């Protein structure tokens, strides 16, 4: 159990550090990006671009691998249909993201930056996830 959790732990630490370095733990910066018709701040596009380029290479490597390095097989999403749930849920997520400038990763990472504010967001987010489970 411990050994299997080393990869996710390292990944989580690197992910959280990346969010902080890229300025994504500051809701003002994220909302600045979403303020397309106002004082637009393109920083988030650089964060997303850097991450997507590295992951594009990772997917190219993945396609040539039979199995992951430290697990017996790949467990990847297989759905390909564009459903009302996908679009409606994503639309709602964008609204919540725009309201406070926080998405799940930065909300959790910010627990060490503004503990009370981030905790309120994270607890509310978990409540929203619970509502989604009830509604499904």
């Amino acid at each position, binding site marked *: *159990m411990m050994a299997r959790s080393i990869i*996710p*732990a390292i*990944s*989580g*630490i*690197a992910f*959280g*550090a*990346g969010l*902080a*370095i*890229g300025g994504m733990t*500051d*809701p*003002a910066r994220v*909302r600045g990006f*979403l*303020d*397309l*018709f106002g*004082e*637009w701040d*393109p*920083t988030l596009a*650089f*964060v997303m671009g850097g*991450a*997507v380029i*590295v992951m*594009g290479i990772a*997917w190219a490597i993945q396609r040539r*691998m039979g199995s*992951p390095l430290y697990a017996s097989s790949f467990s*990847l*999403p297989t*759905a390909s249909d564009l459903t009302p749930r996908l679009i*409606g849920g994503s*639309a*709602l*997520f*964008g*609204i*919540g*993201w725009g309201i*406070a400038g*926080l*998405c799940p990763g930065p909300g*959790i*990472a*910010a627990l*060490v930056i503004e503990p*009370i*504010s*981030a905790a*309120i967001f994270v*607890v*509310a987010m978990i409540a*929203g996830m619970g509502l*989604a489970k009830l509604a499904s």
Partner: protein
Amino acid sequence: MMIPGYPDAAPLAGLAGGVLIGLAAALMLLGAGRITGVSGIAARAVGLSDSSTPRFSSWAFVLGLPVGALIVVIASGGLEASFASPLVLAIAGVVVGFGTRIGSGCTSGHGVCGMSRLSARSIVATLTFMATGFATVAIMNALGLEVLP
């Protein structure tokens, strides 16, 4: 480095942070064979998802996020951040939690992992939440609703 016209943007820090996020997601994909979708992993950690990921591993990732941010806070001597009021944070949190579960992902799972895989679902999801995010901020600004200090 500064982008002409956007003096407040931090393109190099953004790119460096993005590359690190990409490496984190690449490690998860090539090492553990899984997608780094924060909303799904968080839901799994608290028992709100039936994913096959072991809950212990989900907690390891979720707890890693603030640890990583803390390392940057210590190394940099503090990070700027301004947050909305508790009421606004609570409303936004519920909508984000509900929406990401119904929509099967957020900025990390759809935006970073899915788009780079050229998944049609993730590209549509990302365009959708970007569009409603832009619209939400534009409408709030038009109504004079300032949520950040």
